[in-house]
């Protein structure tokens, strides 16, 4: 039996506007992630050395290619706001959906926090004024971007498209400005990455580096959050997501090559702004200033997309009564989930003031990896409950179940990587999710309608 792909219907309430195309999907995905090239990925050099950072760039790229393939299939079929949350609700069950929404909210909110810290630190470093702190810049960034998101998704993502493109072009300009085909003139890879320091911790360092290798691409799956606001989800979501992944793989490879060829691994592993430093080390004031501006733009684009995505996940929780329905209000004029945007604002501000950059990044990565683990199992259940041909899929990913198995194995490795050096944070977060799940299952779920949660026009799943 084949059924038509239709958007979820939610009674007569004001709905989100369908105004976005593939370029917006690309901008949302790449916009969130590109900041990972400007900060964060380089902490993998700290955990394992420069060569480890390259190895995880490729291997984690494989993880995210699996994520993009799986996500494109499921999202092009389950086209509803909340992305993976809506997927979990229709395929696994309410408690999983509740957890997935929280993974999304924390991954994006902590990524937003990291972006704001990066922006504040970069401005303070550039100003070089004694006593100047990053707090006012962090607050201004988060508040202004929340206001922009409050005003409307189209304007938000149009802004993202422009600033993401500028930031991306800056990486390309840097790459070609340093004569990448010639070693010795500007780039000195052979002298900086030697047999003695390429893997300072050996192969255990390569495993450990997986943690921050995630940061090269974390958030690309955020494209699915716009599912209910895209004009043609079946076409735009796979196209925008896969194009975004290709864009990021190229950017990651260029970024590693330039940075590894310009600074020692010990410095590369701890600097908050490796690409700006790379610009400085070329000796060109033009490149230095370009990369300074690009770092700020990448942070803004990422934070902007994160607010968009986190608010939609939170909004979805309210709409299904998983959380108080007060959060499910859509602004009557701007058609945005304004209460969710406003609610998450002080949480982001609070953590931006109390967390360090690598702590905030680790919180975000942890939630991301929990979500990817879910995705690897989710696609197996999706294919089992609705085999090919039983429902209309906008896109069917090839080589199933290989991407799911690869994704699951790489998630297990990444959990071990987080254990190496950041085990306490991992335990604290899992304990939080466990306790909040117990709260939901045994208390909160009584307020949730049962059959109404299933909104897709699909046949009954096989085995039920």
């Amino acid at each position: 039996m084949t059924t038509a792909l239709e958007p979820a219907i939610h009674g007569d309430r004001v709905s989100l506007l369908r105004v976005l195309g593939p370029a917006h999907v690309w901008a949302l995905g790449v916009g969130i992630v590109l900041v990972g090239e400007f900060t964060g990925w380089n902490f993998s050099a700290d955990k394992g050395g420069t060569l480890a950072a390259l190895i995880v760039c490729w291997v984690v790229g494989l993880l995210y290619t699996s994520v993009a393939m799986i996500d494109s299939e499921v999202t092009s079929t389950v086209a509803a706001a909340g992305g993976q949350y809506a997927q979990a609700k229709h395929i696994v069950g309410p408690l999983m959906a509740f957890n997935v929404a929280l993974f999304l909210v924390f991954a994006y909110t902590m990524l937003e926090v990291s972006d704001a810290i990066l922006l504040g630190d970069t401005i303070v470093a550039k100003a070089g004024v004694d006593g100047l702190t990053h707090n006012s810049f962090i607050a201004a960034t988060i508040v202004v971007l929340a206001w922009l998101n409050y005003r409307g998704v189209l304007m938000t993502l149009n802004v993202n498209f422009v600033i993401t493109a500028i930031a991306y072009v800056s990486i390309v300009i840097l790459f070609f400005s340093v004569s990448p085909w010639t070693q010795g003139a500007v780039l000195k890879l052979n002298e900086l990455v030697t047999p003695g320091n390429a893997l300072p911790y050996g192969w255990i360092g390569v495993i450990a580096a997986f943690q921050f290798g995630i940061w090269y691409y974390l958030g690309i799956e955020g494209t699915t959050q716009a599912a209910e606001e895209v004009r043609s989800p079946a076409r735009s979501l796979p196209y925008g997501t896969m194009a975004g992944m290709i864009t990021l793989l190229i950017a990651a490879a260029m970024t590693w090559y330039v940075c590894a060829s310009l600074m020692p691994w010990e410095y590369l592993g701890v600097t908050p702004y490796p690409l700006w430093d790379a610009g400085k080390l070329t000796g060109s004031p033009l490149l230095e200033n370009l990369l300074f501006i690009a770092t700020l733009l990448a942070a803004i684009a990422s934070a902007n997309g994160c607010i968009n995505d986190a608010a939609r996940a939170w909004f979805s929780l309210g709409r299904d009564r998983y959380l108080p329905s007060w959060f499910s209000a859509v602004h009557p004029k701007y058609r945005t989930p304004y209460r969710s945007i406003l609610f998450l604002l002080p949480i982001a501000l609070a953590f931006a003031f109390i967390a360090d950059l690598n702590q905030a990044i680790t919180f975000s990565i942890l939630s991301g990896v929990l979500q990817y683990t879910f995705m690897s199992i989710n696609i197996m259940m999706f294919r089992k409950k609705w085999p090919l041909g039983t429902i209309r899929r906008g896109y069917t990913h090839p080589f199933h179940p290989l991407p799911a198995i690869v994704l699951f194995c790489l998630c297990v490795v990444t959990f071990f990587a987080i254990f190496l050096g950041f085990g306490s944070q991992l335990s604290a977060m899992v304990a939080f999710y466990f306790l909040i799940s117990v709260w939901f299952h045994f208390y909160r779920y009584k307020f949730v309608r049962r059959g109404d949660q299933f909104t897709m026009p699909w046949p009954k799943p096989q085995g039920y």
Partner: protein
Amino acid sequence: MSRYIPPEQSKAGQVFDIVVVVVAIFVALWLPLKLGLAGAAKSIDALDAKTWEALGQNPTMAGIWEKLGYTPETAHDIIQNRFHYVIDWPTLIIMAVVLIAYFVFLFRASDREYRDVINEKFDDK
């Protein structure tokens, strides 16, 4: 299957639930920061001789450090601040058990809830 009618939640109840979630967020995320449990488990392997050679930096590396504004003394704590990867097996096993237990609970409890959803949704037709 009879249709489940959830109870209406009072405004006070909604506010209480919001507070519970916010408190849980801050306890889980803020407490590790406050207790110093978050962040990288690194320590400095101090050296007596603070020279570029002793710090394992060749002339190219030393030149870059200096271009970035560092001397061997100021770069020492950055270069010698290292991870010490020692696998604490009991901790690793506990973490793995907690993680697996979490996912098992998630999938089993979700499945129970999901069966209600499917039964109500499709038995109505």
